[in-house]
């Protein structure tokens, strides 16, 4: 039997506000344990939460970017459970009245656009962290993370393959980074996801029983964990077993999922509206203001790169995946660099160099205007494309301008026909055998002659001129 998977993701994104969601403590990563806490986020008796407006703004922004309806009234609820990293004994989250609902994002997989529904986006606070290794015999609790603002983005069960899930997750990350509301850093836990996975025979409408995979913290693991889980469920069904509803943990080291708790052990979280926080009323004019001030989103930008700069879809997709990369490219184009050439250089040489140095485009030693100027030198025939590679490397290494490097190293292209003709004559005279074979029809030897001329001119000869003059000389 053929099966298809049904996948929905719950993405948890840390909002990049300076302070926590319900108190003024810093959200900075990596501080000494419990140095970023106060009576509120450590759950002292009598302390009360007050909502961070910035977190609300960021969530609304995200909702708008994902085509959600923004609820004029939403409510914080308490999710009650005991755990040492949860100082109040409940997590403040949203339950039946989330801030954003009914949205979607489009993803491109195998050249086809797939629309993935967004069920809801809600705000909540993070928990602290239990450390088990620091003190033998004890578990230590670090509350620096407690009360850090999170946004949970819940998708519809619209994905069918692990690949789609990974692309969707990447798309969410791209959008959030464009908006500047989440740094998307998966290693530091700023972005993580749970996946709901079930399988059903192809053609069947009803969903199969799902399992919820927790603890997925990289794009690679999204794909691997779901792949593993689909495979596990199919094998289970094929061997006559039944999938049970349960929560499973992804073990990245072992490359498998294992059962954490079944349906019977599921918590009764006893959600109820948090009486310490007033309902969030969102003013339509305020939302319109946010909408009006919204940055251009990746989809719109990709389309514009195709229509405005004539880039191929693929280039546009790659260049718009990161907002700063897209902006870097646009600066080159605006500074007069030919768009397609700029795209090639960025996607090729520049990305390669940046990757080698483990650098992001934000700390690229090269300025967009410098690449534009180099492209102009190529265009105007001052340097050849081949020489440009050397020039580009040097520019990247030193941060100096192309013109300066070209001048200093004498890399100016030789376009002077008489100078090139002299060289050609010399080479042709010195290679009578090759000439004979060429004239006998072995036209591939053209390459040999071009190579010889370029070698003699140290690569500086204008290849176009060389080709023209050589052909004339060889054909006599």
């Amino acid at each position: 039997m053929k099966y298809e998977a049904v996948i929905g993701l719950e993405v948890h994104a840390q909002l990049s506000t300076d302070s926590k969601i319900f108190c003024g403590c810093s959200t900075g990563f990596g501080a000494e344990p419990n140095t970023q806490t106060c009576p509120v986020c450590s759950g002292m008796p009598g302390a009360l939460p007050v909502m961070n407006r910035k977190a609300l703004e960021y969530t609304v922004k995200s909702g708008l970017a994902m085509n959600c309806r923004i609820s004029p009234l939403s409510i914080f609820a308490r999710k009650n459970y005991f755990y040492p990293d949860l100082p109040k004994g409940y997590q403040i989250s949203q339950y039946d009245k989330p801030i954003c609902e009914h949205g979607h994002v489009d993803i491109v997989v195998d050249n086809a656009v797939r629309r993935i529904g967004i069920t809801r986006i809600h705000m909540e606070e993070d928990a602290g962290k239990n450390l088990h290794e620091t003190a033998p015999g004890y578990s230590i609790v670090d509350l620096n993370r407690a009360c850090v603002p999170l946004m949970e983005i819940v998708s519809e069960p619209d994905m069918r393959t692990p690949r789609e899930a990974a692309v969707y997750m990447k798309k969410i990350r791209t959008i959030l980074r464009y908006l500047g509301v989440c740094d998307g850093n998966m290693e530091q836990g700023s972005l993580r996801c749970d996946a709901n996975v079930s399988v059903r025979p192809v053609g069947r409408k009803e969903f199969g029983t799902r399992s919820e995979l927790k603890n997925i913290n990289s794009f690679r693991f999204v794909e691997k964990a779901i792949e593993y889980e689909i495979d596990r469920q199919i094998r289970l069904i094929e061997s006559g077993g039944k999938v049970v509803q349960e929560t499973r943990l992804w073990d990245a080291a072992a490359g498998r999922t294992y059962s954490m708790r079944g349906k019977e052990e599921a918590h009764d979280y006893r959600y109820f509206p948090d009486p310490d926080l007033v309902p969030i009323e969102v003013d339509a004019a305020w939302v319109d203001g946010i909408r009006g001030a919204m940055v251009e989103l990746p989809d719109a930008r990709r389309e514009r790169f195709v229509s405005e700069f004539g880039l191929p879809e693929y280039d546009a997709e790659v260049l718009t995946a990161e907002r700063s990369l897209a902006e870097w490219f646009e600066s080159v184009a605006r500074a007069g660099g030919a768009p397609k050439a700029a795209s090639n250089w960025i996607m090729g040489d520049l990305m390669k160099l940046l990757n080698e140095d483990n650098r992001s485009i934000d700390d690229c030693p090269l300025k967009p205007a410098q690449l534009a100027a180099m492209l102009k030198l190529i265009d105007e025939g001052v340097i050849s494309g081949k020489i440009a590679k050397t020039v580009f490397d040097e520019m990247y290494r030193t941060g100096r301008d192309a013109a300066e490097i070209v001048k200093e190293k004498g890399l100016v292209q030789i376009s002077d026909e008489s100078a090139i003709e002299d060289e050609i004559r010399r080479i042709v005279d010195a290679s009578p055998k090759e000439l004979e074979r060429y004239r006998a029809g072995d036209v591939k030897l053209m390459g040999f002659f071009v190579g010889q001329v370029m070698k003699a001119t140290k690569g500086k000869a204008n290849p176009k001129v060389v080709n023209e003059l050589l052909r004339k000389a060889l054909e006599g």
Partner: protein
Amino acid sequence: MKLYEKNISECRDMLLGGEVSSVEITKSVLERIADVDGRLNAFITVSGEAAMVQAEAADRRRAGGERAPLLGIPLAIKDNICTQGVRTTCASKILGNFIPPYESTATARLAEQGYVMIGKTNMDEFAMGSSTENSAFGPSKNPWNTGCAPGGSSGGSAVAVAADECIAALGSDTGGSIRQPAAFCGVVGMKPTYGRVSRYGLVAFASSLDQIGPITKTVRDAAVLLGAIAGLDTHDSTCAAKPVACYEAAIGREIKGLKIGIPRQYFIEGMDSEVEASVKTAIAQLENLGAIPVEIEMPHTDYAVATYYLIATSEASSNLARFDGVRYGARVKGDDLIDMYRKTRSAGFGAEVKRRIMLGTYALSSGYYDAYYLKAQKVRTLIKRDFDMAFEQVDVIVCPTSPMPPFRIGDKIDDPLQMYLADIFTIALNLAGGPGISVPCGFTSGGLPIGLQLMGRPFDEETLFSAAHAYEQSAAWFLRKPEVAA
């Protein structure tokens, strides 16, 4: 007259006139506590040394020209209001060693004025009770008859005020916990409108009902004390931005033409006859002062107690989850995490607190939420509507504070339902959110105080102060003081 017998406005006048120093008043109050508190048990913690230091500081500030109304006045604070560096127990074993690292907004505002924090008062554990018997530190005694309960849950504060162990006190009121003990102890107790006083630093019992308020010797003092603690606080989202009126200015206003509503549903069968007679006499007295009585209907009154015990316990079950032995308070070692939780909470909480946590957990649990919590919220809306409609007809609602006079210690402690009925007249107001005040309106034949409750429109504390003060001055019950043998 001894210094400790004075009220806030008398102390203020004497301090301003240079007749007395804060140090002298504070010393007098501390001596009084030393004399009588062994018998009354109003205090869990008396901070004598710190109080003297504060009194000296207040005297210096006054010498420097400061004139804040509460500068140098010794006040007692209910032990569920966090005081930085001073143990705050909520009368619970689980917080028996808890010293807050921060100050509540209400007491921080008093501290700005330079008050003297004389000590932390006894209460029902986590404010759950109506007699102050549910205290890990033993019951407080009613100064009018030490065999009787002082009411609760702010019983310690009411006793301390009635027995002159402080000049005035703060309590908290979730279902009557300021007004009922004030009535039982023959003093004034005011529950402000929900959102009038910041709850930041008040250890939560039921967040949507809790309010801090004054317990004082006179209505005027209540106005002064409320004025000091009321107003917007950015640490409490539920605290109102409405400007705070000058409450003392409402003292002495005439009440001619004031419409007072007499709700039929608050004069129930089985109510104590002496209470009923006293309250009716008080209403007649208000009429003499020019008020116009109007019979009104509050049709959903019967549901108030049931509604309250679903909402309050639901919120409490969640609010008290933080007492888990992990970060502060008492911890009992266990074999593993769950065992530690279980042992800590079993040993740390008293019976009534456990009962309410269980009730609330049940009401919120999946499958029961709609039938209990949600239904209760709907009834709460109806009860609130009763008040809204009543206040279209009248300015103030008048009724007994409690259907019964002070009962004997031990009488009701084993019958929670009987105990819950002690708050039958005060609970509805917490559900509706408005302000209420209890003033003494007479004594039983056995010499036990009876309280009159006045309830007002949300954020109209002024009218309550005017009416209560007018009645208080004309009836003059405040002249009677309990005799507490040293």
